[in-house]
């Protein structure tokens, strides 16, 4: 989420900077009785004088403003998935974490190593790692348990056994 917030912040900062500069330049030009530079402000103020709050286009713009505000608020306050998961501490002053993407790669590989698994994908949240596997076997039997065991081993190796709970689903590939 930090990256999205950085992008939004950069865009807003650019808008503030450019908007502020353009406004100052236009005001100075108008004070010197020179024609406008980028903003035809005479046309704009005439248009604003003609429009009332109840006109359709004004309502549409106001609804757009509310929607934009809501989207910005959600994008800013949403926690999102963690970039890394903290591992239980061992040494004073040392914080160890595992990157979420690395963890997903590692868990998916562990699942793929199970006999009968054609493909596997993992998605980790704060408490659960969901592993979706596909198999070509017609009767998978205990495949889900075997995949779960492999994934659990991997999570334990990472030191996340008390933090992350694996959830494995097995789906069968359609016969051709």
């Amino acid at each position: 989420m930090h990256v999205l917030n950085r992008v939004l912040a950069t865009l807003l900062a650019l808008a503030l900077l450019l908007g502020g500069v353009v406004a100052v330049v236009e005001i100075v030009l108008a004070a010197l009785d020179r024609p406008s530079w980028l903003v035809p402000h005479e046309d704009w103020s005439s248009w604003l004088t003609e429009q009332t709050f109840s006109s359709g286009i004004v309502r549409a713009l106001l609804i757009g403003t509310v929607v934009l505000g809501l989207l910005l608020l959600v994008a800013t306050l949403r926690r999102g998935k963690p970039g890394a998961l903290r591992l239980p501490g061992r040494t004073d002053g040392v914080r160890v974490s595992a990157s979420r993407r690395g963890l997903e790669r590692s868990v998916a590989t562990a699942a793929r190593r199970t006999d009968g698994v054609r493909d596997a994908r993992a998605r980790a949240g704060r408490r659960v790692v969901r592993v979706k596997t596909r198999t070509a076997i017609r009767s998978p039997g205990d495949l889900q348990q075997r995949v779960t065991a492999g994934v659990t081993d991997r999570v334990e190796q990472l030191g996340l056994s008390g933090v992350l709970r694996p959830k494995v689903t097995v789906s069968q590939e359609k016969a051709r």
Partner: protein
Amino acid sequence: MSTRVNGINRVVETLFALLLLAAGGLGLAVSFGAFGYADTPLLPQGMRDFARDQGWFWWAVAGACLMLALLGLWWLLAQLRTDRVSRLDLTRDDREGLTTVHAGALTDAVEDETQSLRGVVNASAHLLDRGGRRLALSVDLAEYADIAEIRQTLEDRVVAHARQAIDDPELPVDIELRPGRTRSASRGLL
């Protein structure tokens, strides 16, 4: 990235969002007749006359816009800031002289020692200033890596050496392990 800048971004973006919501919501309320001004122009003629007649008005607006532009510039430049520290001041007593260490000397040593571990594909270390200096170490691990063993070695040996090198036994350290990197072999042995 700077954590302080992240906090500032979050606060300013929230304020922007609330401002947009308030302006849009209030405008819609007026538009639907909540205050009885639904049919008044967005820009009343009286306001245009006032702006034209008062000589100071547009200069005040220009001053406010200039402040906003400067705020935007400061905010834009803040995005480029990081918490990274380039020098370490190890001076104990100014009268005995100054001792500074290039942070790269420490982080290079930490990276080299980490990359010599079997199963480590790559390592990247940085010294940060986050309410006091702290070392951040990112370690890319091969699929075959023994994560528990590498973690133990990092905490017991690499961190201990770094702390010893700058004579700071309490130096806080953040280690991020990135398992599952595809490169098949590392350079070193445990």
